[in-house]
């Protein structure tokens, strides 16, 4: 075997401390047939040319480059090997600059140390094997889970980029939580005016790509990996054909069954077959099976018979279906919900009719809500006083430890809307902390501070606050020696992950943090990527956030996906990864338990573990964990590492 050793002087950086001639003199003591050449500034254009020419002429079997840190130029020199027709994994770098020349006082000692390190590299490189990057075709289509701001933005942008998108949504409608709002902080923009064009585009927009919207659906199974996922999606029956229904509402008018309206958080009732709200998109009603008279053995078919478009629009017998879609990447945008404020008993949530959480109050403010946008008590009276309690369950070890960051802003939005709807009402904000970040939020805050009828009171422990009715039934908010009446109490609970996040994280194999939000690959540099390759995160499924941030996150997830998942592009798989030797694997599963990337699966039929090279990051933890020594860490094999030590210690 012929090993070429290339020594970079790096001007005086290396040459001042390490003697090239001493390396040349030491080379005959190295194993194998070696030659040593020096190139000044081997990373420079000229240096690389010299290096490549020499490689072509000498045709070495292995190459050692003694120069700077491989963190700087390993890729550069690998490229040179490739250009010279030599497999790029047949090279080993020795860091004689940063880790020897620059840090060793005595040139003799530095030279000795460099010779040892080069000997180590020679020992190692002769065991290195040529490795090939495997290639894999990919599917450029994308699955977006959740049709709130982040998911809608992502789906639209994918369609604009010409991609086929499957957009699945758990509820019967588009828009997520904000579709319930009338006005938005910080600018008091009209929410429907902002969302409806987006939703219209999603349903009927003219884009190079396509959007397949599947409402009332959820992911039930995911197999495959980045570039080649197979998703099974369960669609619950709407009992109304989205393709045929024109949204005239004749079926709703005749429905005799009444149930709670969950869209308004059960603050009013709806028909068993009904629209979620007036103006909902897609513009079609849906039937709640449990509320329908037929669920109790009845044979009502009033809705079906009332449909002016015929008998095949309402399908009372419709059952759930499962559809399969092939996709290359997934954007998770499942959003968030509110912490259950009834868990803080003293606040009366769920017990006292005039205590509302913020989402219920958003519906009261909405012209499509239960009161048509009129603020009134459960008894129908105009409130003279309103209490807004911030930080409900937030920054609290007994509930959720974090600040949700958006509640103060909507609380001051409420302040603005209440003062404009009820001229004389007094408003008291009970807050633990105040958070109004950014360049716009202070406007609403200032409005509240300057308003004569509004005041702020700080509390330190939510348990010091109680909401109780007095003898006349009027609510009194008590806070450590202070008592003030409030005809309506609005609670601003912590924002927590949406229902089902736990189940979805298992299906996707994506990790969650201690608060239950999906965990980012890196909180700052890769905050829209999950821990699993090809699964991206957008919106409040990651952490509490406002609409602006959710939309941006939606775009970020698109950016990540489009950058990686190009139609016709082949995925190149880094060959520095792990591989299981079937004949030695004992089937103990230990490797699976230490892999952070779920890259190892178990083949039950053959009782062996399999590493998926696409998902493997090449850390080598499983290689070390395997008690049978059945896993090879390519390019970092036991033999190579031990040989490098041995050469170094000689």
């Amino acid at each position, binding site marked *: 075997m012929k090993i070429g050793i290339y020594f970079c002087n790096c001007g005086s950086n290396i040459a001042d401390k390490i003697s090239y001639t001493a390396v040349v003199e030491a080379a005959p003591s190295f194993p194998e047939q070696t030659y040593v050449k020096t190139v000044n500034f081997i990373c420079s254009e000229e240096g690389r040319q010299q290096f490549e020419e020499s490689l072509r002429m000498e045709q070495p079997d292995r190459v050692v480059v003694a120069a700077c*840190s*491989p*963190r700087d130029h390993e890729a550069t020199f690998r490229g040179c090997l490739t250009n010279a027709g030599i497999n790029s994994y047949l090279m080993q770098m020795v*860091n004689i*600059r*940063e*880790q*020897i020349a*620059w*840090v*060793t*006082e*005595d040139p003799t*000692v*530095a030279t*000795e*140390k460099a010779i*040892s*390190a080069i000997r*180590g590299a020679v020992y190692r490189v002769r065991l290195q094997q040529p490795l090939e990057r495997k290639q894999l075709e990919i599917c450029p289509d994308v699955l977006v889970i959740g049709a709130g701001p982040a998911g809608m933005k992502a789906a639209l942008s994918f369609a604009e980029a010409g991609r086929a998108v499957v957009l699945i949504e758990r509820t019967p409608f588009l828009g997520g939580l904000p579709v319930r709002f009338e006005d938005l902080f910080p600018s008091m923009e009209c929410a429907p005016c902002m969302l409806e064009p987006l939703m219209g585009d999603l349903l009927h927009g003219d884009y190079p790509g396509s959007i397949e919207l599947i409402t009332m659906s959820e992911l039930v199974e995911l197999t495959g990996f980045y570039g080649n996922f197979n998703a099974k999606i369960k669609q619950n029956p709407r009992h109304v054909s989205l393709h045929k229904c024109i949204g005239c509402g004749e079926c709703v008018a005749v429905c005799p069954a009444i149930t709670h309206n969950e869209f308004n958080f059960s603050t009013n009732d709806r028909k068993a077959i009904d629209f979620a709200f007036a103006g909902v998109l897609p513009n079609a009603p849906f039937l709640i099976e449990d509320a329908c008279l037929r669920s109790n053995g009845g044979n009502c078919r009033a809705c079906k018979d009332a449909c002016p478009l015929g008998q095949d629009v309402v399908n009372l017998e419709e059952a759930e279906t499962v559809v399969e879609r092939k996709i290359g990447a997934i954007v998770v945008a499942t959003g968030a919900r509110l912490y259950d404020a009834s868990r803080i008993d003293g606040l009366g949530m769920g017990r006292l009719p005039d205590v509302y959480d913020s989402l219920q109050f958003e519906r009261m403010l909405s012209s499509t809500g239960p009161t048509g946008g009129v603020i009134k008590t459960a008894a129908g009276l105009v409130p003279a006083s309103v209490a807004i309690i911030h930080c409900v369950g937030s920054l609290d070890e007994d509930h959720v430890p974090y600040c949700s960051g958006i509640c103060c802003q909507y609380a001051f939005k409420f302040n603005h809307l209440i003062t404009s709807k009820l001229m004389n009402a007094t408003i008291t904000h009970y807050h633990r902390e105040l958070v109004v970040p950014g360049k716009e939020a202070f406007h609403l805050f200032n409005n509240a501070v300057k308003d004569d009828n509004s005041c702020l009171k700080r509390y330190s422990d939510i348990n010091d606050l109680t909401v109780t009715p007095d003898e006349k039934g009027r609510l009194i908010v008590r806070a450590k020696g202070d008592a003030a009446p409030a005809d309506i109490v609005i609670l601003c609970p912590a924002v927590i992950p949406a229902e089902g996040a736990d189940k979805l994280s298992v299906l996707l194999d994506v990790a969650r943090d201690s608060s239950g939000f999906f965990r980012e690959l890196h909180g700052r540099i890769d905050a829209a990527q999950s*821990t699993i390759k090809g699964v991206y995160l957008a919106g409040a499924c990651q952490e509490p956030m406002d609409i602006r941030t959710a939309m941006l996150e939606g775009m970020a997830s698109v950016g990540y996906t489009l950058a990686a998942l190009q139609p016709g592009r082949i995925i190149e798989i880094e060959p*520095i990864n792990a591989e299981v030797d079937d004949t030695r694997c004992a089937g103990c599963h230990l490797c699976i338990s*230490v892999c*952070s990337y779920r890259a190892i699966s178990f083949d039950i039929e053959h009782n062996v573990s399999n590493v998926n090279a696409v998902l493997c*990051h*090449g*850390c*080598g*933890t499983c*290689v*070390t*964990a395997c008690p049978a020594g059945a896993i090879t*860490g390519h390019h*970092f094999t*036991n033999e190579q*590492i*031990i040989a*490098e*030590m*041995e050469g*170094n*210690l000689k």
Partner: protein
Amino acid sequence: MKDTVRFEPKIIGFLCHWCSYAGADKAGGIQGSYPHNVKIIRLMCSGRVDPLFVLSAFEKGADGVIILACHHGDCHYKEGNCRALQRHSMLSLMLAQLGIEKERCRLDYVSAGEGEKFKRLISEMVESVSILGALQLNL
């Protein structure tokens, strides 16, 4: 005269590519020397450090081994450094049974920015192994 010649131990350093190896590069970047005794072996992750590598290092003539990982929470591979810690704890028990002082196999943490800490750890390691003297294996 012979008594004043300092014992120069041979030490193997297993460094992870992402943090501690970068920290060692950083130490080079800020110049200033540190003891030459540690021979650095770069691995992708400290989770790759097999206790057998440590035993093999001792067998092949090393007087000490230092494993430098990313700080907890910073591992490029999420929890490889936790595995390194677990294996190091286990290995320490085994080394004690073999009569090898625990100071000869040390685990510590160096971030990509901690060039000074890297220099300090190397100096400490060399100092403590120098005091112990050459490793006598009685296998």
